[in-house]
């Protein structure tokens, strides 16, 4: 309503500028949190290191060959849009590994996904990114097992097993779309990856995972469309 006049719709008196700003800021907070399906602002306990984040963003951007990114970056930031024009909210999720138990030949990595996204999105793509340590001459087989908690939650079952031949140090990727989707389907949030290197290689990953070589899962998800009833 123009300054000084009451609100024609609700009849309330116009707010003082300072009060109006507080109302608008709280409206902005509510609107962003509800659209992100978050009950409250997250408290960050384990921020990703800058090196890990930049590497992951760079690798996912390079990998996204089919994304229709609008030619011009949006004016309010440097983030290219995911898939403009579809009208469906999409998410790109980067989940960085938490180190689990390890032996001289195997290492376990845990990846966690939030409840909000698990319950309301469908996975379009999920890729595990790993940086192999230098294996030495020849080829070295590595077995990658995706483990998921069994219905009791007490034991882990092997959801899938893949064998790779590693010849040199560097990044490798593994498709995990189905595993992450079934994880979401079970309402579970934690995915465990076990890497086992055959004889004499030691741990297949760089010891101490330098920041820019930190393993991560990059997933793309789309909001589930609510069930629409067409009125005739």
């Amino acid at each position: 309503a123009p300054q000084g006049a009451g609100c024609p719709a609700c009849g309330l008196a116009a707010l003082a500028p300072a009060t109006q700003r507080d109302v608008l800021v709280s409206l902005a907070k509510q609107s962003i949190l509800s659209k992100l399906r978050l009950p409250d602002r997250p408290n960050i306990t384990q921020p990703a290191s800058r090196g890990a984040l930049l590497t992951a963003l760079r690798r996912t951007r390079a990998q996204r060959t089919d994304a229709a990114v609008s030619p011009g970056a949006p004016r309010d930031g440097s983030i290219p849009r995911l898939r403009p024009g579809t009208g469906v909210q999409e998410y790109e999720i980067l989940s960085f590994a938490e180190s689990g138990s390890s032996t001289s030949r195997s290492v376990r990595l845990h990846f966690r996904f939030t409840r909000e996204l698990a319950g309301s999105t469908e996975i379009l793509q999920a890729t595990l990114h790993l940086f192999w340590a230098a294996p030495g001459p020849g080829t070295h087989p590595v077995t990658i097992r995706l483990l998921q908690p069994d219905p009791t939650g007490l034991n882990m079952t092997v959801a899938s097993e893949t064998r790779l031949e590693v010849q040199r140090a560097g990044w490798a990727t593994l498709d995990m779309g189905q595993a992450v989707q079934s994880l979401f389907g079970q309402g579970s949030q934690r995915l465990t990856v076990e890497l086992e290197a055959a004889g004499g290689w030691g741990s297949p990953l760089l010891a101490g995972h330098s920041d820019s070589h930190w393993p991560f899962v990059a997933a793309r998800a789309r909001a589930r469309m609510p069930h629409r009833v067409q009125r005739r």
Partner: protein
Amino acid sequence: GIDCSGNSRMCCRKEFFVDFKEIGWEDWIIQPEGYHMNYCTGLCPLHVAGIPGLAASFHTAVLNLIKANNADAAVDSCCVPTQRRPLSLLYYDRDSNIVKTDIPDMIVDACGCT
């Protein structure tokens, strides 16, 4: 659309920027630095009415409210957004994952009378 300036009372777009640092959100929202929560305000005289708007059904609802509250109000047009765009966010979720998304229709680019 018209951007509000000076003391024009016509329907216009009022710029309103929420700085994430000011509200203490800069730790979990990595990009951008704030949210342009622009809104529409001002009068829609009859000779300006009729420009198609995005929220026609919203317009009807608000007009009914106005008539219910102010029977003698001679208003039959409302200042509403006519152009909006997504808000692209890069943020930490509750499990310290990094999420990138575009929230549709969050930023008002233009207003008009409907």
